[in-house]
């Protein structure tokens, strides 16, 4: 992977070695992506839509940041603004320290993106030809990264299809080719929009594992936008949640989950009838009631001292508890809490 100096310009060979020592500490402190006060409005008058409203965020080098939000939250506009595909009304975007408005060539040398709903590569070329082509347009002599391309083909299980035209591959394989071509030029910052869309479980797992490896071992910085909470939870160090064009949460996955800890337990028993349920509702917050194999499974807001109260209440009602366990919050619940919407795009009720 190519190295960058603090100026953001790709440096290779002797120039790089000379500059490395001088710039190393400054470069390490410079975030891969720094977005300051980005706003974008589409349309005008009554039809105006504020897609992104004064959003700022910073992405450290080598980190994996997830972008979550319902449809229309402003994720795509934010990503496209960062990539220069959309020109924001206000704000600045710095990529490895370079303001994209001042130096596009320098800023985008080590950036690539896989956008959702597009082919992203040339289906009439073979897989290998796509890797070579996209490496070149990203400013890298493809011959100098031929070994890297072979590794990518191996890692994405594309080696046997390397000389096959992309149009002849399955949807999942095309998705892999798209991702491999994004990595072909040795980009250090990549934007991935729904990277696992169309992949089977095994391919999705392989891809997630590869993304984690690239971030950990090669210092790749990844901004991933996805509706798939499992993907975000699995690979991201940090999650930025957006709603109505604004950032509503920005924290590590662990912090977001711990913040959503509601001290809830899930009690399972055949003895929880409607009467018991009414008594529980009088005294506790009952979040969810299910019937599984003739047994009632009730999620009750109780922890610490209130947990003893819950147990006393059940005992007094003659209920034999068959199973009780603490409820672990899920990212999707945090998402719904913070955005007030379902992950699929609709507002929760």
């Amino acid at each position, binding site marked *: *992977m*190519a190295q960058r100096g603090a100026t953001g310009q*790709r440096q*290779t*060979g002797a120039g790089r070695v000379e500059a490395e020592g001088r710039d190393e500490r400054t470069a390490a402190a410079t975030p891969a992506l720094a977005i300051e006060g980005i706003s*974008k409005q*589409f349309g005008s008058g009554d039809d105006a839509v504020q*897609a992104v409203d004064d959003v700022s965020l910073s992405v450290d080098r080598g980190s994996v940041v997830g972008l979550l939000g319902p449809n229309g939250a402003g994720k795509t*506009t934010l990503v*496209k603004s960062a*990539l*220069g*595909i*959309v*020109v924001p009304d206000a704000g600045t975007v710095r990529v490895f320290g370079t303001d994209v408005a001042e130096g*596009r*060539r*320098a800023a*985008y*040398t080590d*950036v*690539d*993106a896989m*956008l959702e*709903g*597009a*082919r*992203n*590569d*040339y*289906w*009439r*070329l073979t897989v*290998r*030809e796509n890797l*070579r*082509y*996209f*490496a*070149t*347009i*990203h*400013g*890298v*002599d*493809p*011959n*100098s*990264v*031929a*070994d*890297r391309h072979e590794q990518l083909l191996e890692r994405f299980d594309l080696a046997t299809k390397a000389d096959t*035209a992309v149009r002849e591959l399955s949807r999942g394989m095309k998705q892999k080719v798209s991702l491999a071509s994004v990595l072909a030029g*040795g980009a250090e910052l990549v934007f991935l929009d729904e990277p696992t869309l169309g992949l089977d479980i095994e391919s999705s797992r392989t891809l997630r594992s590869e993304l984690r490896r690239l971030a950990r071992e090669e210092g790749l910085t990844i901004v991933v936008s996805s509706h798939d909470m499992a993907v975000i939870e699995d690979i991201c160090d940090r999650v930025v949640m957006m709603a109505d064009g604004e950032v509503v949460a920005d924290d590590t996955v662990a912090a977001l989950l711990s913040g959503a800890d509601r001290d809830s337990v899930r009690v399972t028993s055949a003895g929880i009838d409607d009467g018991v349920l009414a008594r529980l509702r009088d005294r506790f917050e009952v979040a969810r009631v299910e019937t599984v194999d003739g047994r009632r499974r009730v999620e009750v807001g109780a922890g610490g001292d209130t947990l003893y109260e819950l147990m006393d209440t059940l005992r007094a009602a003659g209920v034999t508890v068959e199973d009780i366990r603490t409820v672990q919050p899920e990212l999707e619940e945090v998402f719904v809490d913070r955005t007030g919407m379902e992950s699929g795009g609709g507002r929760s009720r």
Partner: protein
Amino acid sequence: MSRDATADDGSRATTDGDATTPRPATYYHLARAVLYREFLIFVRYPANAIGGIVVSLFFFGLLFYGGRLLAGQALTDSLEGIIVGYFLWTLSVGAYSSVSNDIGSEVQWGTLERHITTPFGFAPVALLKGVAKVVRTFLTSAVVLAVMLLLTGTWLSIDPLAVVVIAGLAITSVLGLGFAAGGVTVLYKRIGNWLNLLQFGFIVLISAPVFELPWTRVLPLAHGSALLQRAMVDGTRLWEFGPLELGLLVAVAVGYLAGGYLVFYYATRRARRLGVLGDY
């Protein structure tokens, strides 16, 4: 220990000690990549080129045999001029539609967006693709010309230097129109079919009365068409044209190419402002 490999495009790759260090690509690498891609698509998917040749010859057959039935000797007397004009028209249509349609396809595939986020940008790629399209169009139109000559039993003075230079510069102006149309497609999307109608306007430009109305020489194709007629029908050599005539040919070509390219550039910029660059 070093290992040399020959890449698909014939270039040599060295994977010895320093080879794992990515080397920056220059405009030479970019040109090679873009032209090689166009070459691969041309040789791997010849159906488009063959289809274009067949359709061109079909319409010429209609024109030739239909014209003979209706106009008889009058058509025979002007046949050489018709063949040269038709040859230039096929060149123009090929260059125009391939550039404008190609830009539309790049928008649709999302590859235009990817080019925007590269250090080179889409501009040099679009120009290089234009060069490739012109070369490709010359090859297919040469086949059309040869068949037209055989079909009609006509003989023209084909000095390759004069034909390539004059026809090449003439269709460079059309290339500019193709870029402009591509820019409009980037902004307004599905209007490719309407823009393709413009190619019928090329017939008017090719047959423009440049002697009676000299100002028409500054229109695309018109002056080039007149010079090509003289080169191919009268056998005028390239160096026998006056410097003013050649200068005007170059100026019209460069002017329309630059103008069309500016339209494309500003349309792309406006699409980025409106946030519609990748919408299709």
